[in-house]
């Protein structure tokens, strides 16, 4: 029987020769991850099932959401996962100042690689599909079960195949691709399904673009997003990991619910308007109407806080000043990216332009801290959600965009086309 790439990984991890969409299976887990919001809640549930984690190499707890601890309760939560990590002798002990945002640090440290079956108690765990792994977000009870047993039940998903062709234009990146796709299929367009990205266009996308695209698969309701393994993936894993990995590819006659062709060369800078990630508008549509003036810009997060994202933003901000009416938060996703920004002179570019250059944290993305918005304020953000109240007041408005659009908008003071900066 023919299988999709996701189905092949799941079959192997369930010890089955084949699986079919809709089948309920129990699969072995290669990595189980939680953070400072979901982790502490999982610990009492974990202790109802076990005293020791199933494998000290495979359980990772990352303090990143309310860190640096924003208040006493957050400090208690960070303390709970820190003590658990130490007491359980977890191999990958994560701490503020030495790690970063979970979905950036796990690939960077080589903890996740191709062919693995990964769960994380965070919806954006689907990010690691960029490496050719099956990776999905779950809740607290699931993660506690994964930590205790190393197994979890899954319903085998069907899939939508996205055939990418062509090459991205300058000032267009992975974020525009995924906002374009979610705009096309809707926020439940891939509900319960896999999004499998294939085609000659894949080779044109950087690893950072692929991480961004898979990161937002959940915003279309998907169970996972996944890319095939190619030279770029192998090179990335060689640089970052010593783990063994396995390459899977879908059968040629695998059955898909839908096949959607995406011509990368036709995609232009795209912005998702409040209050849904699927509310996509091209920058050309926006600029026809009245200017949308903004108060805040956030460049960072598990979606767009990687090195190439910050390089693209810096290229636009270099020698320019942020508009007087705008405050800008630049948040590198990991400590390694943070120091690389200093080495390459990016940190100076950001600060000279008038941006706050902050320590790695999820803070502003979910209205936690370090960039919470007031009533009526508007923000262009490279993050992943623009729901009501997501970044602060319920009457604040969030426009999701690429680092290029965010940087251009920071300079202009309104939502701006990065292709026209300097004109």
């Amino acid at each position, binding site marked *: 029987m023919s299988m999709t790439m996701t189905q092949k990984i799941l079959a192997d991890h369930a010890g089955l020769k084949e699986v079919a969409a809709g089948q*309920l299976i129990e699969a072995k887990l290669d990595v189980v991850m939680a953070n400072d919001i979901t982790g502490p809640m999982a610990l009492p549930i974990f202790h109802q099932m076990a005293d020791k984690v199933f494998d000290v190499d495979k359980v990772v707890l990352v303090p990143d959401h309310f860190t640096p601890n924003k208040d006493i309760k957050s400090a208690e939560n960070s303390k709970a996962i820190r003590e658990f990590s130490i007491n359980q002798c977890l191999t990958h002990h994560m701490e503020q100042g030495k790690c970063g945002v979970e979905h950036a640090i796990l690939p960077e440290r080589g903890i996740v690689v191709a062919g693995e079956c990964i769960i994380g108690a965070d*919806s954006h765990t689907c990010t690691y599909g960029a490496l050719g792994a099956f990776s999905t977000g779950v809740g607290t009870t699931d993660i506690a079960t994964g930590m205790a047993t190393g197994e979890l039940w899954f319903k085998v998903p069907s899939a939508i195949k996205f055939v990418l062709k062509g090459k991205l234009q300058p000032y267009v990146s992975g974020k525009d691709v995924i906002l374009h796709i979610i705009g096309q299929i809707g926020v439940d367009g891939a509900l319960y399904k896999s999004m499998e990205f294939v085609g000659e266009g894949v080779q044109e996308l950087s690893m950072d673009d692929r991480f961004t695209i898979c990161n937002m698969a959940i915003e279309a309701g998907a169970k996972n997003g996944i890319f095939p393994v190619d030279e770029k993936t192998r090179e990335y894993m060689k640089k970052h990991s010593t783990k063994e990995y396995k390459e899977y590819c879908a059968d040629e006659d695998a059955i898909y619910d839908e096949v959607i062709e995406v011509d990368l060369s036709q995609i232009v800078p795209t912005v998702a308007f409040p209050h849904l990630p699927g509310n996509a508008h091209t920058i050309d549509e926006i600029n026809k109407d009245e200017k949308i003036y903004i108060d805040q810009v956030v460049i960072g997060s598990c979606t767009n806080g990687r090195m190439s994202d910050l390089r693209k933003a810096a290229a636009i901000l270099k020698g320019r000043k942020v508009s007087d009416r705008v405050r800008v938060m630049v948040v590198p996703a990991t400590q390694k990216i943070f120091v690389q920004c200093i080495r390459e002179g990016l940190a100076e570019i950001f600060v000279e332009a008038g941006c706050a250059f902050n320590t790695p944290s999820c803070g502003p993305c979910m209205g936690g801290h370090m960039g919470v918005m007031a009533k009526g304020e508007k923000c262009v953000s490279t993050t992943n959600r623009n*729901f009501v109240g997501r970044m602060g007041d319920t009457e604040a408005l969030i426009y999701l965009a690429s680092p290029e659009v965010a940087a251009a908008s920071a300079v202009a003071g309104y939502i701006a086309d990065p292709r026209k900066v300097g004109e």
Partner: protein
Amino acid sequence: MEACGSVLKYGDNVDTDVIIPARYLNSFDAKELASHAMVDIDPTFVERLNQGDIMVAGKNFGCGSSREHAPLALKTAGVSCVIAKSFARIFYRNSINIGFAILECEEAVDDIDEGNQVEIDFDTGKIYNLTKNKEYQAQPFPEFLQKMIKANGLVNYVNEKKG
């Protein structure tokens, strides 16, 4: 198992950020979470909700974050069941895992109005609208999930399996 209550009705894509905003997630105390349930789209929710009331909503209920705090907040606030056209997958898993009742039924969602009195028989998946004197049939759960629901959640299921 049965539920009976008055209906509070919402639209499509009710996300977990409005069910329980992230600013309250520095606590996982169920009662505290429940006191803020739905505050960002319906500030009077907790006040209006009577123990056992039923939420009815459109498609993709519970989309967004994986926070299990969301079904926990609704359950603890006193919601006996959510009937929706569809659920986001992580919310769906989380609800089953903590023993919070959810049902998928398009017909019921289209027909039931805010304030209707509704009764649910979970064994048969039948939904009775007492106000309109109508009956709807929800999608049944797969057998594996029925086992887990009967075990009252994933933790008990795992412990039973271990023996």
